[in-house]
């Protein structure tokens, strides 16, 4: 068994164990309805975490995604309100903007040789500021397509609903898995996270890969923004503050090494579901307070960071 896959197994084991505990206390939690809701409610987070996984495996971080999601919602809402452009065209425009935005950040990180953390911090301010410039208030979206998208679902056995949003998230994860594990680009991402200097010596185009990594994250943030706007039927510049933190937490809890070079896309899906499960449990319980979510997630973060550190020591020891 590969030592590198150990955090992934730990993630899966924790998720199953948590689900078991939930089930013992509240047998109703083992139903397709709960699972369907878990997927729908966390769809936007899951999608953005797919992009974040690739960024983190490449050894970077993207703090701008929460702001980009908010920008996306406001952009769509304002364009739909003020023009007669078809929503699908608006989606395409938006994805082009957010992808270019990500690419620009990647370019700056590479060209300026500055820490990704501070460059994407500037991106975070910029995207949030841009959404305020479009609108200060929440802008409702009443497009027929939106109503259609909200009502689109597949009824699973047990009357649970697999919504369109949930399906988009699963598709995003599948696309992420293919990109990360089945393309040369994906291998280059691991190479970058394993050691930039060595990767360059081995012929990896470091600049192009860095730009592509952040462009991919920007694309996923835009897609997440579309899903979030469908989920809430509105664009609000104050929305999704701190989602970048949740996404980073989900990626780490999913077994990805925060310093890059190691991790699995599937683990991120489990990480997102684990975080969703904690929230669902608290809702089911009723007496527990919501802040326990943050504390438990912080505890899980600590556990996984220490686990990774321990494994690193073990590998060096070998």
């Amino acid at each position, binding site marked *: 068994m590969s030592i*590198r896959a150990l955090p992934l197994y730990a993630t899966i084991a924790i998720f199953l164990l948590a689900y078991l505990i939930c089930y013992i206390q509240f047998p109703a939690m083992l139903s397709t309805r709960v699972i369907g809701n878990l997927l729908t409610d966390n769809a936007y987070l899951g999608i953005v975490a797919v992009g974040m996984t690739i960024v983190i495996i490449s050894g970077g971080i993207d703090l701008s995604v929460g702001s980009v999601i908010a920008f996306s919602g406001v952009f769509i809402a304002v364009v739909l309100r003020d023009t007669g452009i078809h929503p699908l065209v608006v989606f395409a425009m938006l994805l082009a903007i957010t992808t270019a935005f990500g690419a620009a950040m990647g370019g700056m990180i590479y060209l300026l040789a500055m820490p990704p953390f501070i460059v994407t911090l500037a991106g975070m301010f910029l995207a949030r500021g841009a959404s305020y410039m479009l609108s200060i208030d929440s802008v409702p979206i009443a497009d027929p397509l939106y109503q259609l998208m909200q009502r689109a679902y597949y009824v699973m056995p047990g009357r649970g609903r697999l919504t369109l949003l949930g399906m988009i998230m699963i598709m995003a994860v599948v696309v992420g898995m293919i990109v990360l594990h089945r*393309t*040369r680009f994906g*291998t280059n991402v691991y*190479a970058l996270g394993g050691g930039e200097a060595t*990767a360059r010596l*081995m*012929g990896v185009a470091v600049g192009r890969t860095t730009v592509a990594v952040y462009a991919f994250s920007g694309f996923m943030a835009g897609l997440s923004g579309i899903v979030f706007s469908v989920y809430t039927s509105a664009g609000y510049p104050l929305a999704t503050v701190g989602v970048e933190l949740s996404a980073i937490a989900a990626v780490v809890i999913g077994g990805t090494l925060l310093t890059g070079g190691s991790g699995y896309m599937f683990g991120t899906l489990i990480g997102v579901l684990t975080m969703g499960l904690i929230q669902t449990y608290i809702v089911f319980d009723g007496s527990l307070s919501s802040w326990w979510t943050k504390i438990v997630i912080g505890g899980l973060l600590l556990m996984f960071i220490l686990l990774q550190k321990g494994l690193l020591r073990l590998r060096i020891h070998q």
Partner: protein
Amino acid sequence: MLLSTRDLTKTFPGTRALDAVSFDLKAGEVHALLGENGAGKSTLIKCLTGAYRRDSGDILFEGQPIFPQSTLEAQAIGIGTVYQEVNLLPNLTVAENLTLGHQPRRLGMIRSRAMNAQADEMLSGYGIDIDVRRTLDQYSVAVQQIVAIARAVHLSGRVLILDEPTASLDAREVQMLFDVVRDLRARGLGIIFISHFLDQVFEISDRLTILRNGRHIATCPAAEVDRMQLITLMLGHELQQETATRARPVADGKDAIRFSGVGRRGRIAPFDLTVHKGEVIGMAGLLGSGRTESAEVLFGAAPSDSGTVEDSDGPVDLRNPRAAIAAGFAFAPEDRKTDGIIAELSVRENIILALQARRGWSRPIPQAEQIRMADDYIARLDIRTPDAEKPVGLLSGGNQQKVILARWLATNPRFLILDEPTRGIDVGAHAEILRLIEDVVAQGMSILVISSELDELVAVSHRVIVVRDRQHVSQLTGEDVTTDTIVRAIAAPDLTPEATT
């Protein structure tokens, strides 16, 4: 000739790293490149592989002049390199490492099975049977080296440069690697082999080229030289220097620091050492023999895991550098840039730093006192700097070394360890540092000098310890301290039978 250089010259500020070096490599030979640190080996390799741009001279590949601008270009021409470390990515699978950038694809997707088959194919003939789907870091360093060789041979295929490939291998693994090297030689590759293990050099090489101070010293068939001649050529002591007359150490035993059985597993075998007041102990040995490791044990930088240390007042605590400094020890490390200077801080701050660290944060050295100390040492050691406030990183190597010496002299230590104090320093500064050693010893300080320059050791040392294969193998005193005896002790394993690995 497969690959040759003609009058290759490369200059860095302050030093001429390569001085009109001519070198050639035939197809189907293993050609060892020998020399101490700073001899110009790595500069030569970096010029060959395009990592450095040469100042002048030619590089000919099969008779054609080439101008590689990067290691990738050199690789495409046919020159592949395997370094001691950082060749491949430990977090990727063996197959991914072998095929990175060339993975077989269908519709943009990597065909894993084909990729793994290709990797298996690339590894066939290397005598290792491993699962290419596992990540590289699950295999031993030897296997990683062979995988790196397989990749380099696959991508370049004519010239293979092995830069210290055996540094972290055990004897069995070295044989495994050598089998691969012999096989490649039989296939007609030209192989440049760099190692500081002379036994290995003699075992595998057909010809040897020796560099010293950036100059080509000799090239000859390996069978025509013995160890003595080789070491003499590498260390170079054409100048027969007479042993300088010097004051005998005060060997009354009272002021001695006695190390008994100190060592560190995997780095240096346990050894005994008694340091007398006012004594200069030289330490000789080839690169990688355990010289620096001895110094690190003595200073607590890599603390000893055995033995005891005591002086006339009882046991001495050497848990870490702080404890060692408190006990009056000082250490000027070999790698000035990473272990010595604090580049951004000023000359003044660098000079007072060790003393300040020993006094503790709450008792700052007054500004006036700092300036006085800095000016004093700048004058005393002739540190060439416009003023004491210049960042030390902007000074030349020799002046940086003097700043580090000043830093330690300011703490007034009783035992000063100098690891290669004169490497990469111009002749003037070199002489000044030797004079300085004589000065402080006259005042009663004890010094341990590690150096590759035997003339220098003979000139300053009262006695010389010879280190080989991570053991202290002999100690030369009095009349025996000559370059000849040192070379003989480094070269001859039969002098001390227990020293063989």
